[in-house]
């Protein structure tokens, strides 16, 4: 039972971590909690369904699994990146010099708007996410592991590694780190801050889109409301790890999912969410900056 809970927790954790990265990246640069981020993730799942529908109609899912798999991820990534950038342009950039509460309210407003927009456009009912990958399953140390779980974990880890490379090995990544440390100073030395912020939103949205598509595959069911809970959980994970800190978001995501899973499995499934938020409160009492937060700007982005 322990290994089974561990496996399930790690898979869920990788999804939490992917979404949490989007929160933490934006916070690191703008000190803004982008509450509409969960909605971007939800849209990723919906675009995934749409792409799968089109591909199936074209018969491509039968012909080339690799190509359809690529498209199912790539198109939602592009779509969501565009959404993220537009969101920043419309809802946050005009408020950049406003008091901190204004962009926060704008973010909540965008979240409600997007959720209702999808409900109206796509209907309120649950939508099935068509099964694309039939990977089978195997037993490891008494735990039932499905191929899909391995696929999700591998994809998530690849995205995380890609993000680390991007932040630490590219010019844009360096510009992001500089902007995170001091926006004014970065602008003075020639960093195009507006562009960096747009890129940050795009990167966060791409990660959310990947998470959305994978969750759709994992649970096989999507509705307009999934962004809310996932967003709150990922936000919790980001705060738990130390918001603004990339490694913290990863740690927070895995930690939250594992704690939640073990609690639900061994103690009480009813109080799963209560426990998740209780952990957050306790951590914040003893370390208000989160587990890895406040460790200077070294790892910030």
């Amino acid at each position, binding site marked *: 039972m322990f290994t089974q809970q561990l496996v399930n927790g790690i898979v869920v954790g990788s999804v939490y971590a992917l979404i949490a990265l989007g929160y933490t990246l934006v916070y690191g640069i703008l000190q803004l909690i982008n509450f509409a981020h969960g909605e971007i993730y939800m849209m990723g799942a919906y675009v995934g369904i749409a792409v799968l529908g089109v591909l199936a109609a074209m018969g491509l899912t039968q012909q080339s699994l690799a190509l359809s798999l690529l498209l199912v991820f790539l198109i939602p990534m592009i779509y969501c990146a565009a959404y993220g950038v537009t969101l920043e342009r419309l809802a946050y950039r005009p408020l950049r010099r406003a008091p901190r509460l204004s962009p926060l309210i704008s973010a909540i407003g965008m979240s409600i708007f997007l959720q209702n927009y999808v409900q109206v456009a796509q209907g309120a009912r*649950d939508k099935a996410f068509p099964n694309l990958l039939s990977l089978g399953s195997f037993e490891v140390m008494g735990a039932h592991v499905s191929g899909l779980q391995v696929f999700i974990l591998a994809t998530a880890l690849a995205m995380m590694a890609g993000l680390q490379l991007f932040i630490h090995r590219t010019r844009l990544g360096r510009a992001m780190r500089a902007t995170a440390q001091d926006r004014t100073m970065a602008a003075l030395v020639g960093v195009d801050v507006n562009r960096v912020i747009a890129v940050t939103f795009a990167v966060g949205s791409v990660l959310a889109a990947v998470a959305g598509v994978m969750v759709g595959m994992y649970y*096989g069911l999507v509705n307009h409301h999934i962004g809310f809970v996932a967003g709150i959980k990922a936000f919790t994970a980001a705060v738990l790890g130390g918001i603004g800190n990339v490694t913290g978001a990863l740690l927070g995501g895995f930690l939250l999912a594992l704690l939640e899973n073990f609690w639900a499995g061994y103690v009480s499934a009813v109080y799963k*969410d209560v426990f998740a938020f209780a952990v957050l409160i306790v951590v914040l009492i003893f370390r208000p900056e989160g587990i890895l937060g406040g460790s200077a700007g070294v790892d910030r982005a």
Partner: protein
Amino acid sequence: MRRWTLSLLAVSAVLLLAAPGPRAAETIKIGIAGPLTGDQAAFGEMLKNGSLLAAEEWNAGGGVVLRGKKVKVELLWGDDRHDPREGVSIAHKFVNSGVAGVVGHFNSSVSIPASTVYAEAGVVQITPASTNPKLTEQGFKTVFRACGRDDQQGEVAADFIKNKLKAKSVAILHDKTTYGQGLADETRRFLAKLGLKDAFYSGIVQGDKDFTPVLTAAKQKNPDVVFFGGIHPEAILLVKQMRERLGMNAAFMSGDGVYVDEFFKIAGKAAEGSYVTFTPDQAKIQAAQGVIAKHRERFGKEVGAYTIYSYVAANLILQSIQETNTTAGARLAAHLRSKAWNTALGKIQFNARGDVLASPYVMWQVKGGKFVQLN
């Protein structure tokens, strides 16, 4: 200054819009309340289509005869999104708009608090679907239930688990709602009566997506049957995660809240072989053929589990208004109890509590991508 004038103009325009217009010709208002949107919108649609068919039939004939003249039927929609608080505020809204009766609500957890509001105002409420026993045991004169009760349903489920499936070990899950936990507890009670104690019992969080932690814990007890008290969105995920994530082979069983096409459409192969308690096949009821055909013609699809129940509930209210020549709730309630009614579901008679006298549940199974009645 001009800005001020403009905003003043805007405000007064809004006020004008909000002011009541000329009174429309008098109508008989019937409130229809249930989860019209949200994850249980599939149920809301049944409620909506069923009551709409009934109202349209009456209106096609000119309306309900009241005090010597024909009065049109007007339906007021209340979307409670299966939220008890929404349900109560809709109940107040309905009462304030002067409804003559209410078809709803759908979920027991909403119907029960709302029933207090209707009872105080003396408005007749017929629920097409709330099966929790408590609803009709509050002593209200105005509450009626067109469907069966969970103690009847739980008994059928328990009997099937013990005597047909010969299960040795049962895991029981519920979604903590009045309906879900109520059904799970009734099944548990009847199982205990048959000498089968549940090996695992736990609640889950409605709206959650990942139930593998609790299912993993249940799996440790090697259950032959997993019984779930709850509604289809969670049932879909549970059965999928049992089969695909944990490789559990235990039979999956649930109640009428899962008798929705979505269950096997979305869960697919995982749902195959699952059991659901529900009333006998409505397609075989002679009296229901007319509604079934009309529904197909009007909405282009087959009736759902509770479409005909909603149709019958609306008809019962309208018919008793015509027969008693009044819209006064107390008299309508007394009249509803006074006789056996010929409805699209066959003969229906209410007892003093407002429950139907006979409501046999039977076992259904998902076979080849559809529900098949077992005998």
